[in-house]
């Protein structure tokens, strides 16, 4: 009996407290509470695009390629498992014939040894305008932003790897095992991932949001890479693409890649 009485008083008390607290809660709601605000310095664009100048990379040498890779993988806590089976890559150098299989030419390859076509090419997510990975994702864990960036929600991804099958550029990697012990140097500005989710280059969305260019572009000393708004006639990328001949990887598939290679 006694306990029933005590329970009643408890509930009554809590109710009174709740009623008393309501106006205060309303006041907070009216004030707006915490709100998302955009960093005024954030870089914005209608359509982000990247230009990779193969000639300049050849001039700068292979260290320049590695600098870009290191900058990216350090900025994004990309683990290094040290074996090709588990490895995760956001940006990495490959043979020209691998980057552009359709450009394979048995005669030129034989005749022009040591030419541009023998120098490695950096590949990364192309942030396609019509991304097949976004089309196939069953949970919208990978999605396309208004400015063209194709991004990942690591917390929604179920690890089905349909996006990896759909990507014609091999740009995506799964965390086949716990990546955290394999991160050399932890960057607290960017989240680490858990095992079982897919990841890839994000065109440094987190850096753009605070007014910084992509890490790989920043790591270039001689303008080997450029980044900018394709819709802005005065942007770096537009100027480069106006004055140079550029190609894209597998344009015939119609995905409209937004990484351009000056050859």
């Amino acid at each position: 009996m006694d306990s029933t009485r005590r329970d009643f008083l408890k509930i009554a008390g809590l109710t009174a407290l709740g009623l008393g607290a309501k106006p205060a809660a309303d006041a907070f709601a009216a004030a707006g509470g915490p709100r998302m605000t955009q960093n005024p310095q954030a870089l914005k664009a209608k359509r982000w695009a990247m230009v990779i100048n193969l000639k300049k990379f050849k001039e700068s040498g292979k260290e320049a390629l590695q600098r870009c890779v290191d900058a990216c993988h350090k900025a994004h806590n990309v683990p290094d498992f040290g074996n090709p089976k588990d490895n995760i890559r956001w940006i990495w150098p490959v043979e020209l014939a691998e980057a552009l299989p359709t450009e394979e030419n048995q005669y030129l390859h034989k005749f022009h040894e040591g030419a541009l076509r023998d120098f490695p090419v950096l590949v990364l997510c192309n942030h396609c305008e019509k991304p097949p990975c976004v089309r196939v994702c069953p949970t919208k864990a990978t999605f396309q932003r208004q400015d063209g960036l194709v991004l990942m929600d690591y917390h929604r991804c179920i690890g089905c790897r349909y996006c990896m099958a759909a990507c014609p550029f091999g740009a995506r990697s799964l965390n086949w095992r716990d990546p955290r012990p394999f991160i050399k140097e932890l960057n607290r500005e960017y989240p680490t991932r858990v095992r079982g989710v897919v990841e890839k280059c994000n065109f440094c969305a987190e850096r753009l949001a605070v007014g910084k260019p992509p890490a790989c572009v920043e790591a270039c000393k001689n303008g080997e890479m450029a980044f900018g708004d394709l819709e802005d006639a005065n942007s770096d990328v537009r100027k480069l693409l106006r004055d140079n001949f550029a190609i894209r990887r597998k344009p015939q598939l119609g995905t409209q890649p937004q990484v351009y290679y000056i050859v």
Partner: protein
Amino acid sequence: MFEKALTGSKGYYIWVLFLLAVIGFGATNYLRQYFYGLGITGMSKDVSWGLYIGQLTFLVGVAASAVMLVLPFYLHDHKVFGKITILGEFVAIPAVIMCVLFVTADLGRPDRVMNVLRYPTPNSMLMWDVVVLSGYLVLNLFIGWTVLGCEKRGVAPPIWAKVLIYISIPWAFSIHTVTAYLYAGLPGRGFWMTAIMAPRFLGSAFASGPALVILLCYLLRRVANFDAGREAIQSLAKIVTYAMVASVFFIICELFTVYYSQVPEHKNHFNYIFTGLHGHSSFVPVMWTSAILALIATTLLIIPSTRKSDSVLPIVCVMVFASLWIDKGLILIVVGFIPSPLEKIMEYAPTLPEAAISIGIWAIGALILTLLYKVAVAVRKQQEYYNVTEAAH
């Protein structure tokens, strides 16, 4: 009705216990995978789907092939199938359950599988696969159980069951079509990007599924004293024959397009499996085994005397099943990734835990099938017994 699955001979109990042991073995390996990650399998950045998705693909076909018994019986009143249609429907149930288990085993984050339902995405073929597979499972559960229950009571199935049966016929085609669409619509995967993928899937499914049912009929005759009837088995054998011929024809169409056009993005994959590519040839013996089995089996099926022989037909059915399992359960998925979109070759072979998990899931399927068949056969025998005693009076 289910109580019939709880009693049986000593052999029945031993078989069930054996399956439970295999399932336990698979489950322990799955726990290892769950805590280590999918890195425990043979899959890699380049070959990102393997044995699990292969089994899914193959088993969707087995599930769909139930329609090869349902369609002749319910649409064409092919009476000899009356006794075994339920066997086809009861194959479909464990097959779909295995599909679900294989997809789940393949997920990097199985704990988030409900995200597929929480954020339904109609542009993803995977969502449609979930829809058609779960629908097919529900259809077959209702149909199989109701029809068998009515038989037990000696009454005709209700009209709604008939309606469900008619719905299940196109539905069966849809599950395997959607599964083919999972792969056939991906740019940059030359091995899969072929319009004949769905027809090819259906052709091989309608060969492998009925071949399995024939084998099960022979098995039931031995272990359960249940005779499906020679005519029924021979009808199934004809279905297997036509489906096998269609399958081989579809593959010839595929090979012609690939090799006459000589487009490297398509040809490289086929070279890899038939002759090896850039010194990598681990799949060559596997592919030729499948191809030779298929050719021998098709020949023996076409020749009437061998098809009609009770001693040859089971062997032919094993060959059909094995050939198509290799083709669809192993090669079709893996080779889609070899060479990779960057024309690199990363070879793939399942690891022991991966194989153990797969065998465990197959054992779950075998267990469900055993229980369902036990019920079906018991009900059938009871009916036969009543019919005999009634006739005696």
